[in-house]
């Protein structure tokens, strides 16, 4: 996996390192110039570098001639005192625990979003506690980030709803953009969830439903104001001490009206980035189909949150962001009740309706979702219907594509053979042999699918599965009546389907194995070698086919790497 080693994360880290170096170097310069105020500013703005800055502090104390600086800060002489006073911000403020921030005192860090740090802060003039959100770094934030920040604040500032966190003020302090909003004491759904689910009584599912009802109502309100949230996730849903939900963080809100009224140019910059959190975003967001993003994308995100609340597991979360994205687009998480059998059937139906890949099949508005949740709580019939046969098959296919495609192929093949046997009545012994092999093939497929779901080393399972496929196909071809020429199409099919795992080595493995199996077949069945050049051509075509498939995978991987680089958040 060469590509993985030279992966995009490395260069992303490089960029991060450069910024970190720049900030730390600036910090050290200030430190060596005894500019405590600027040091303090950098510290506030870059909390993620706090520890390294502390290292710089103590190294500076070791440096030989720093008596001078200590004297200066500890007992300022007359000039120093005036110098300090002349500045807006006293250097003495920061030995204390709280940090001055204009009209606010930052009391503690509450959390971090993709672009900002949220502090609990005291607003001094009104003497009230608020939540203050900042952009992570000031001079390093791009114009785009600043734009998004103000967009978020503007969008949120216009809103008034009992389940939406109200915005108070937007502003700038020492070049640092920030806004303030109501402080919600209980924390977010992301960290209160564990507590809730530990006491799993049946009523809890009604609690979950009621929580989701509040969130859906808030989202419905957002949509009525032409705002799509686009980043709904547990950490953006705050719970107050009364257990009421409040939606926050409109950082990615895309305003319908902006799209309609602004120039085309503006639209492109605004929507040019893939935003959202992998694992909670809808398939159309994950696939970067920006035009397809609508209020129904938020419904999908609500579905992932509901699923997580029910099962305790985030349905689409994978090890890497890219895997999460791919999984959202084409994967299907296990049905909620398979993880927790006590999940009410109707709530699962509601959840699955939100999680439909096709926006047209989801709830069309958050209001509809809210209605269904209300119906569920009241014990009334709900709108969501159990999946039809076709939908069920689709979901199964998405969950276990390798198994379903093989079983379908085996089912079709046996069907045809059985029909031929029934109508023409051939050798029973031969027929039984063929059917046994197909039966074996089907059961092996089931076994490998089971291993894929339950064993840790999925890569090995895939290799074994492919090896089994090639051997069984060869066995069938060996036994089949002459002439088998046309049936040799089976090998290319195996190679191409191995490509569906997006794993170059697997394709090469299948190709080599197929070539070997084919050579054996040629030796065992002399009819194939009647014209010796034909098998040679066939083998070469097989090899080329393998290379083309591998190349296609390589190209997809390059694209996905590019995709990952463009994603603004980790």
């Amino acid at each position, binding site marked *: 996996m060469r590509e993985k080693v030279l992966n995009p994360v490395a260069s992303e880290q490089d960029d991060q390192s450069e910024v970190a170096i720049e900030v730390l170097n600036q910090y050290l310069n200030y430190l060596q110039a005894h500019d405590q105020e600027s040091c303090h500013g950098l510290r506030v703005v870059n909390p993620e570098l706090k520890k390294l800055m502390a290292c710089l502090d103590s190294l500076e104390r*070791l440096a030989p001639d720093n008596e001078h600086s200590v004297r200066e800060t500890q007992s300022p002489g007359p000039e120093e005192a005036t110098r300090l006073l002349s500045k807006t911000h006293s250097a003495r403020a920061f030995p204390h625990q709280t940090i001055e921030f204009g009209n606010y005192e930052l009391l503690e860090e509450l959390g971090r979003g993709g672009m900002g740090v949220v502090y609990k802060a005291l607003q001094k003039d009104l003497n009230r506690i608020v939540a203050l959100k900042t952009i992570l770094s000031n001079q390093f934030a791009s114009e785009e980030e600043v734009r998004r920040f103000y967009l978020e604040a503007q969008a949120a500032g216009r809103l008034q709803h009992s389940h939406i966190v109200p915005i108070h003020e937007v502003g700038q302090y020492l070049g640092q953009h920030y806004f303030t909003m109501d402080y919600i004491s209980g924390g977010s759904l992301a960290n209160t969830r564990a507590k809730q689910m530990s006491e799993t009584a049946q009523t809890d599912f009604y609690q979950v439903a009621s929580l989701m009802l509040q969130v859906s109502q808030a989202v419905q309100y957002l949509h009525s104001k032409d705002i799509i949230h686009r980043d709904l996730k547990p950490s953006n849903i705050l719970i107050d001490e009364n257990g009421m939900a409040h939606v926050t963080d409109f950082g990615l809100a895309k305003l319908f009206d902006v799209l309609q009224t602004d120039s085309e140019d503006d639209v492109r910059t605004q929507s040019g980035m893939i935003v959202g959190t992998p694992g909670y975003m809808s398939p159309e967001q994950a696939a970067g189909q920006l035009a397809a993003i609508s209020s129904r994308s938020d419904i999908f995100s609500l579905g992932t949150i509901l699923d997580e609340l029910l099962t305790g597991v985030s349905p689409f979360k994978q090890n890497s962001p890219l895997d999460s994205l791919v999984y959202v687009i084409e994967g299907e998480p296990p049905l909620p009740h398979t993880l927790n059998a006590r999940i009410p059937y109707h709530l699962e139906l509601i959840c699955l309706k939100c999680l439909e890949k096709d926006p047209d099949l989801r709830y069309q508005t958050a209001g509809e979702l809210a209605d269904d949740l209300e119906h569920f709580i009241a014990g009334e019939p709900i709108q969501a219907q159990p999946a039809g046969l076709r939908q069920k098959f689709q979901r199964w296919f998405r969950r276990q594509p390798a198994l379903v495609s093989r079983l379908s192929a085996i089912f079709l093949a046996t069907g045809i053979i059985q029909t031929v046997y029934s109508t023409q009545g051939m050798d029973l012994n031969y027929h039984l042999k063929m059917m046994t092999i197909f039966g074996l093939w089907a059961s092996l497929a089931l076994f490998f699918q089971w291993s894929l779901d339950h064993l840790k080393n999925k890569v090995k399972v895939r290799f074994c599965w492919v090896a089994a496929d090639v051997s069984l196909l060869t066995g069938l071809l060996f036994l089949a009546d002459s002439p088998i020429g046309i049936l040799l199409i089976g090998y290319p099919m195996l190679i191409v389907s191995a490509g569906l795992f997006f794993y170059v080595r697997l394709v090469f493995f299948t190709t080599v194995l197929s070539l070997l199996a084919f050579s054996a077949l040629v030796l065992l069945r002399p009819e194939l070698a009647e014209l010796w050049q034909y098998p040679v051509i066939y083998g070469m075509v097989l090899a080329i086919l393998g290379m083309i498939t591998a190349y296609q995978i390589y190209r997809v991987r390059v694209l996905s790497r590019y995709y990952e680089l463009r994603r603004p958040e980790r």
Partner: protein
Amino acid sequence: MSQSHFEELIQRARAGDRSAENELLQKCRAYVSLIARAQIEGWMRTKFDASDLVQQTLLEAHQGLENFKGETEAEWLGWLRGILNHNALDFARKYQGVAKRNVKREFSIDQPGGSSGQSGFQQWELKDQAETPSRMLLNREQEILMAEAVAQLPADYQEVIMLRNLQRLSFKQVAERMNRSAGAVQMLWLRALNQLQELLERV
């Protein structure tokens, strides 16, 4: 190493406990060494093996222990730093004589930006390292731990920290001294800082 443990060591050492005294001096070895190197290398502008100076300082601390009247770690480190400072000045005086004869052409001993009439050496000598009362009040334990952490770093990490942080050179100067590109030196510095922080967290 808690503060109370450190002060307990000081008390036991003053009461004549040899093992406590050994432990105390060992704990300060990295600290003394780092400061000695920072002082002398900053002045000589080349690498310097400070082990003799450190040995001398620790030996004098051992011999003069009964003269130490303090109790806190800050006072102890201040006292050590005083002895070190005395030895470093001695060394500088001797070295100046040698430098005049032999190595003056090899190292420019003028400080960058030093005033024309005054040699770098004199400037350095004028900066007296005596402890000020305010300095005594600071919590010094962190400095000992930091010095130990620096001593555990790989050689090139140590060098970049020595040059950029302890001698306060710019990255451009550090790059010249280390014969590497400025970018490479900066990356080295970041890695060194990260490793320092990890080492400190492990304590």
